[in-house]
Each structure stands twice: as C-alpha cells, then as structure tokens.
C-alpha cells in the first residue's frame, strides 16, 4: 500500500513552468529517494506536496485521502512533516522552543523525547541554547528531531547532508534508518552514495518530469542507467 501518491502534478513559479508531469507512488515504510540533477525539480516537488508552491492540475493523495486542495497547515496536521533544504530552524528560539512548536499540544511525549536524545545527544546538551548558535550538523539534527517529535506517517526531507561533515552524514544515515522503522521518509538527495545506503525505493526527476522509478537496489546495480540519468560513473 502506498502512503503517498502524486499524479500528474504540475507547478509554475511565476511565469516559469518548473514541474511538468510528476507522477510517483511512495510505498509505506522505508526511505523513498528522489534523485536528479540540480534544478531538475526535486525541491519544488516536495514544496508542492506541502502546498508551499501551488501545483495546478494533478492530485496528491496521502493515505488514500486527496490532499490536493488543502492548506499547508492542514496537510501538516494530517501527519506529514517537512524538513526544508535550509532546515527552517527558528534561530532566535531555543532548541526546546523549536521542538515545542512542533508538538500538537505544547507538551512532549517523554518516550519520543528520550528517543530523540538517543538519536541526537547534542540536542539535550544544547537544550536551552538559541538555535542560531548551533553548528550546521546540530541544526540539521534539530530540524529532523522537530519532524519526529510527534508521530508522523510521512517525513519529507530535502538534502539533509548538504555541507555536513562525513561523520555527521554517517550519524544522519543511522538516524534515518531508525526513523524509517516507524515512518516513511521521502528524501531528496544529491549525494547518491548516501541515498543508496539508506534508500529502499527511488525515482529520478529530470526537467520537471519523473523519468524513472523503482527499487533502489535495482537502480544501484545498473551503472549504465545511473550514468545516463545522474551522470554518475561510480
């Protein structure tokens, strides 16, 4: 069963048509990775699902419900979390306040909080610090923690490894593997090696269209296809 179904989604930004025909299904559980070259439309796809850009025709179904016409806030309340490329951290708020905002009633579930501390120990250490003072990796941890502080069925994450040190990227991969045990992750990623290490399914976007989708293992095994779609030789 698919948790998210995107059908014939098109998005214009100003007078530019960015997405022409985005169609893919995200199966429940695991990590679904959207791959593609710079400017292909991966970020726009995530933003369009969240209604941060207004897609025109097409439809988005989440757990069987048509969410195409919903407001961003209502989409989030249905159980979709979003971690943008710039992380979307509120720098003047403390780590605690950033997380409180992501809770439905302003209170933490102790078990979830304990789990977050275990995944990202730095957040407990800097709990009362303003978020702007965190390092890039810690900010990314906070952004991901904010997405999982409440139970979510689907988490959209945009390029979480960008600019991070290799050790942080490895920690992030471990965290994603654990998170994907209880929620589906839809990940946009440029780093194919990272994507391959955690992805279960994938789609490639090229010039605003989905040009390939399938199991990550199959794609990882097909060097010629990788080279054709992503210009990868490794």
């Amino acid at each position, binding site marked *: 069963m698919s948790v998210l179904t995107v059908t014939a989604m098109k998005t214009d930004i100003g007078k530019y048509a960015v997405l022409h025909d985005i169609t893919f299904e995200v199966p429940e559980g695991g990590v679904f990775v959207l791959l593609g070259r710079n400017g292909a439309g991966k970020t726009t796809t995530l933003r369009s699902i969240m209604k941060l850009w207004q897609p025109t025709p097409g439809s988005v179904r989440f757990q069987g419900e048509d969410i195409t016409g919903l407001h961003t806030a209502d989409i989030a309340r249905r159980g979709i979390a979003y971690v943008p490329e710039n992380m979307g951290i509120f720098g003047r708020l403390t780590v605690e306040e950033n997380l409180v905002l*992501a809770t439905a009633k*302003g209170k933490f579930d102790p078990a979830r909080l304990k789990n977050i501390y275990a995944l990202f120990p730095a957040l407990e250490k800097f709990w009362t610090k303003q978020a702007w003072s965190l390092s890039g990796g810690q900010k990314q941890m906070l952004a991901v923690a904010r997405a999982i502080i409440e139970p979510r069925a689907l988490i959209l994450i945009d390029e979480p490894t960008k600019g991070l040190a290799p050790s942080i990227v490895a920690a992030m991969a471990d965290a994603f593997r654990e998170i994907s045990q209880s929620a589906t992750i839809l990940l946009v990623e440029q780093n194919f090696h990272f994507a391959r290490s955690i992805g279960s399914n994938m789609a490639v976007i090229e010039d605003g269209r989905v040009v390939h989708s399938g199991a990550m293992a199959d794609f990882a095994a097909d060097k010629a296809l990788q080279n054709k779609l992503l210009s990868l030789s490794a």
Partner: protein
Amino acid sequence: METITDKLGRIGGVNLLPVAVAVAAFVLIGAPSSWATLTVAGLAMGMMVFLMASGLSLIFGLMDVLNFGHSAFVSFGAFVAASVLAALSGWLGADSVFLNALALSLAILAAMSFGLAAGWFFERVIIRPVYHDHLRQILITMGALIVSEQIILAVWGGTPITVPRPQFLEGALILGDVSIEIYRIFAVLLGLVAFAGLYVVLNRTRIGLLVRAGVENREMVEALGYRIDRLFIGVFMAGSALAAVGGAMWAGYETLITPALGGEMMIVVFIVVIIGGLGSIEGTLLGALLVGLTANYVGFLAPKLALASNMILMMIILIWRPNGLRPAVK
C-alpha cells in the same frame, strides 16, 4: 581575545544606549534640574511612541506588511479618547480619584476597542488583497491614511480639539529643584506595563512563541501545522489597539490635537521601528526611548536641530547597524 564589543555586550550592549545618551546629555546640559525634567519628558514621549510603534514592528516583522496607515489608528485613538474624556468631563474634574481614573480608563478602553475593530476591518478589507506586494501595500495604506484623516475631519471638524486631563494627573511632582509632570510619570508607567505585558505574552505563551517563530520564518510555521493567516489577524488587531492606546495617551500629553496627528506621528513611528529592528519588541522600546530622549535633549541644546534630530539619529544607527539595534532575525 575579548573585543570591546564583547565587553560591552556582557554589560548590556546596545541596551545601554539610552543610558549613554542620558549621561552625555547630563554633561552637555550642566543643570541637573533641567536634565531631570528633560529626561522624564523624553522617557514619557518614548513610552508613548513605543505603544504606537510596537504593533507596527510586529506587523512589519511577522506579516511583511508595510502599513503606512498604522498611524491612522493613533489618530483615531486620540480622537475617540478625547470624545470620551469630553463626555465625562464631570468625572475628570471631580475630587474623586476613583471617578478620575474611571473616566481615563473608559477613554483608553474605548480607544483600544476602536483600534481592535478598526484593525480587523483594515486587515480584512485593505491589507489582505495586497499581501506579498510591497508597492501596492505602500500605495493603499498611504491612501487609507489620507482617507482616515478626512474621516476625522468630517466627524470631529478641522478645529484643534482640547483634550481634558483627569484631575489626579494634573500638576507636577516637585523634588528639590526638579519639577516633573505627573502625567509624564503616568505615561512612563503605562508604557512599562504595556512592555511587560507584551514581553510576557511573547516570551511565556504559546501564541508568543508562534509570533516569534513567524517573524523568523512564516512558511515553516505553516509547515508545522499552524494557520498563520489567523495569527496575522490577531497580531494586526493587537497592534492597531496598541497604536490607538498610544494615540489616547498622546492626546492627553499634548492636550491639543488636530486631524494631522496621524501623518505627523507616522514618520516618528517608522523611525523607531527601523532603529529598533523589525519584529522586535525590545528593539522597539530601545528605539522609542532613544527617539524620545534625543528629541528632548536636542530640542533644549540646539533647538534648530530639533526637527532633524530623529532623522540624524536614524542615519547614525543605520550606518552602525544596518538591520537596527535589535532585529528579531539575525
């Protein structure tokens, strides 16, 4: 190695600027009694301008709306309060402090209620169609300010209106050589109460947390599941009500008001918001106090420079800190 900026930051940083200005003025003025009178006048003016500007700063910071019509709420607040005070002039002149205070409270309450209702109407009818379009915001809110002046002219007439003060706020407090108007002390206290209230709401409540987060990143607040458009209306109404209360206090301070009040205050209010930094209540207070103190000190020391003093202050601060003293977003 610790820099001078770090050292200053540890002892208060830019928060000390009003103190530094007051100390410099003390040296330049020489006479302690004149300095004390000017300082209290500056603080009172600053607190009233803070009331007017705090809402605009939040509206600017949270909603990204350039509302040049904000000072219309100041005008309406002043005229509504003046009408209530005139209608209750019997209570104002009575020997009973209770009746005096009741008349003043009703006048402030009427101004605040008008500000809330007018703010709701203004956001719905004038601002909502022009979100995300600064040029149209400037044009339509400037137009609204002109229309509001004409409405005031039609309702209250063009003749300056005398605003009666409550008996218990008349007169001055004499401390040695220093004479301090009681109304000014009241204005300072009311401003402090408003600041404390705003501070608590913004820093100790969930709504405040949302406002602070919204000032930084509106889109992310929505992606967390909050309808920020509903927050916008609340903030706009609260900001308009604060401006109206500021106008009511200003009316009692000046004791003579004209329909041009809104236009006159607009420049000062914008200077305060720009000096303080967008979206920051602490910054707005700092900017308002600096503007109030500078206007009074310069008016005494170099009367010919009085009109330009706030502009010069803004230029100096923007050269030093282009985003203002305490912007909400780093």
